């Protein structure tokens, strides 16, 4: 449905070389999917979305929507946004304050000048009904709550049966409760309408919850593309492992990779253990072992861990979070987060413990030099 090939865009800075917002990005989105572009601010994700919409003109590359080329740098093809037949929800919602709810939704149909008044009325009513706000049609747009504005923006975006629905961080202006409700709403809307949707966000939880597929962008490039589960359990780079979910990144080095297949023998804080290879590494390389807090087990020292790898440690902190309890454990110079379900009685601060790392949930990444420099301590625990 959407095919993007080698897209490049550089923004001229006041001084200097300029910022590479898109650095040769290619991706392909199948029909009917909810596709998320996930990245931190400055990763190029918004430039990507705006380029698809036609609000930004890339320097080079090609964009095809439903088989039609809307941009091609080589032939200087550029289809303006109003001809692309898309729906878009903006971060600010961009609700026109001088129009009623009805007029806002009717606008895309009105400016096309192809529909009769009665047909427009029916289509708008349908779109408003889908968003469960039919009763608000005559309201002035300025009298809506944040959540209602959000729905209105969605209704306006889908009313013309767009080929693509583009969502630019649509939930970022809502409060936490409402945001969770709207997640379900969005998912339902997408499933019911079947509109191919491109969703841009910096919120990894949102991305995991909503998407059929995720493209993770960083510095104008796509680092990994895959299903939420793939990205969560098999991050292809240390950056992703760190960015998605909470992750312990334990610094160590490779002892041995020979004859072990996908598993390497490692040394972490003087303790030998095993991890699943993600990058190609050789003996002696510095690595980061990525392991999620919920994958770890924790028992009192001496009680005997069943795990393949155990690291000895001391409990430094304990936080009860309701469904789970999180421990901060010192392992030599490292700090490790461990999350267990329930209140975890019998384990307290200053207790000596053994942490169990399942080898199949511990991914070995080659230490990336820039990150090593920035993070002296080996642990970076996430958001």
């Amino acid at each position, binding site marked *: 449905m959407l095919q993007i090939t*080698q897209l*490049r865009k550089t923004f001229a800075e006041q001084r200097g070389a300029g910022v590479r917002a898109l650095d040769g990005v290619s991706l392909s989105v199948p029909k009917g999917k909810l596709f998320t572009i996930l990245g931190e601010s400055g990763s190029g994700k918004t430039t990507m979305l705006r380029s698809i919409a036609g609000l930004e003109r890339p320097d*080079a*590359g090609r964009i095809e929507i439903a*088989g039609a080329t809307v941009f091609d*740098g080589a032939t200087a093809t550029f289809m*303006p946004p109003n001809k692309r037949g*898309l729906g*878009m929800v903006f971060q600010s919602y961009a609700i026109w304050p001088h129009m009623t709810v009805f007029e806002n939704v009717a606008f895309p149909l009105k400016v096309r000048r192809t529909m009769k008044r009665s047909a427009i009325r029916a289509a708008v009513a349908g779109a408003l009904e889908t968003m469960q706000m039919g009763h608000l049609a005559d309201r002035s747009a300025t009298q809506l709550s944040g959540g209602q504005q959000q729905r209105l923006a969605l209704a306006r975006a889908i009313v013309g049966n767009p080929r693509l629905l583009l969502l630019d961080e649509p939930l970022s202006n809502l409060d936490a409760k409402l945001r969770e409700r709207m997640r379900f709403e969005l998912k339902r809307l997408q499933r019911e309408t079947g509109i191919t949707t491109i969703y841009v966000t910096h919120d990894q939880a949102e991305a995991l919850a909503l998407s059929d597929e995720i493209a993770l962008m960083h510095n104008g490039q796509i680092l990994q593309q895959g299903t939420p589960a793939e990205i969560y359990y098999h991050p292809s780079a240390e950056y992703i492992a760190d960015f998605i979910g909470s992750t312990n990144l334990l610094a160590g080095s490779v002892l041995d990779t020979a004859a072990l297949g996908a598993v390497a023998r490692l040394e972490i804080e003087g303790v030998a253990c095993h991890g699943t290879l993600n990058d190609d590494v050789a003996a002696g390389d510095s690595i980061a072992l990525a392991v999620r807090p919920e994958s770890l087990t924790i028992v009192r020292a001496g009680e005997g861990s069943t795990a393949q790898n155990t690291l000895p440690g001391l409990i430094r902190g304990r936080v009860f979070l309701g469904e789970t309890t999180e421990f901060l454990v010192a392992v030599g110079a490292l700090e490790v987060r461990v999350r267990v379900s329930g209140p975890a009685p019998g384990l307290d601060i200053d207790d000596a413990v053994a942490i169990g790392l399942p080898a199949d949930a511990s991914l070995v990444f080659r230490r990336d030099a820039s990150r090593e420099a920035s993070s002296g301590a080996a642990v970076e625990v996430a958001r």
Partner: protein
Amino acid sequence: MSTVGSEVSPGAGASLARTATRSQRLLLLMRRNMLTTALVVLVAALVFPPVISVVYSSFSAGQMVWQGPRSLTHYRLVFGESSGVDAVWNTFVFAAGSALLGVAMAAVVAMLSERTNAPFRRFIYFTVIVSFAVPTIIQTMGWILLMGPNGSFVNQTLRNAFGGFFPSIDLFTMTGMIFVQATVLFPALFLLIAPTFRSADPALEHAASVSGASRLVVLRRVTLPLAWPSMLAAMFLGFVVGIESFEVPALLGTPGRVRVLSTVIYSRVAGFDPDYGAASAFSSLLMILTIGGVFLYQRSTARAYKYATVTGKGYRPDKIDLGALRWIAGIVTFVIPLLVLGPLLILAWTSLLPFYTPPSFSQLSTFSLANYRHVLSSPDFSSSLKNSLVLGVGAALLVMAVTLVSAWAIVRRRNAMSRTLDFVATLPLVVPGVVMSLAVLRTFISFPIAIYGTAWIILLAFVIHYLPYGLRYNHAGMVSLHRELEEAAEVGGASRLQIFWYVVIPLMRPALVAGGLFIFLASIRQLSVVLFLVGSRVDVVANSMFMMWNTGSFTDAATASMVVVVVVLAIAAVVYRLSGLGGRGGGMASALQQQMRR
């Protein structure tokens, strides 16, 4: 779809930009920005010819614009005679003096009305709003009737009270001119300064109080320093207005033999044997002074913004309770606005009398509406009133239309071409009204299409003159219009024209109405821009009142003043109501105020 390999080079545009020569880059810039380029051409075609013709003809030996050898004859003449040097010095003293006095008055009234419980706050705003409908020429005439040399109200009263002991006040001096100009400036300067006092973040003062500072120390060390940048900006604005001012120097300075550049230019051109060369040389000097003033003003407003704590948070600064001093402060907050209203009151009085006599009860019996019948039935006056209204509406519509599109290009397309547009459209700001009048006259007197002597040439001069003001209003409005509101329409399938019609124009309405109203009112007040463009075939109210005054028809001039003020106020009120911006008077004040923000 075939996949293009990674070896594909960057697009044509980018590679061209990198390797192109200067002229190729300019061509690309123009092709990518057709609309902006077209606007630059249009605005430049309006702005440059008049300005260039004046500067050029000041260096011509003879009286023609383009013919004759280049020479410094006119400048030598100007600086050769002491009157030329005097005029430059007088202009400076007049402008600086009136700006200082005006700012002092405005700051005191602003502080008392916004930060204390001094009375008459509504009265102040009332006079400020009314003053926008009062041409300076009217205000000045009123002052002469109030305080002029012979039989004026004040001098007469003083003589009756003290006999001959009290020396009579002479308004026809530099001091008199500065005083009157300061009262003329007061409303605009007040509107510029008042917001800084009103919207000052009280937390800044509380912080000082909590640290142990007394109320006076807080005032001196926190409140006033915070307001200082805007007072400085107001001072430079007053200075620029003073440099360009014509009415006060013409009516007070001419009989008193105090010449400034604008009146010197007028006398060189309006005499029997016009000396365009010398007038152009004086005009160039006047423009240089103005450029200096405008430069200082813009720099000071940039700084005033840095201190601005206007965040729309709805601060309610603490009002100091003056206690017993309240009514002493009340004298100030009553008398200073009265200085604005006083001239109108004496004109109202005069308009009812057969001939001017200072107010007294004995005169009440001679009251009649004869003057009104006379003035309203005069075809000359009614045609000039009609001209003024039509020209005001025309100028407002044209300027707001051109500058709306320009502001859009400047705000939404940030590139070299749009910055050029901003610069060129702002340029008329440094061309004083008298100079603009001369410049347009000199450019179009021999224009193939005979617009000289018609209303069209006045309309043209107004459009050029008010471009910067319209642009400021529209610019401010456009900046506050979120880009995504337009983009949503664009993605929704609207064409550029549809976006403008359905989204931009409706949302810009407040700025369009406020700017249009400002230009309408200002062009009706305008005298200096039309000075050399009016004639027997076409006249406007400001000039026809100037002529009545010059020929000694004081009662007619007074009556015409009252008619103009009432008609203009009524129109402004109706426009304001209909536009839906209405509500309290403060709304109108703040609408007019926008103009002052650069």
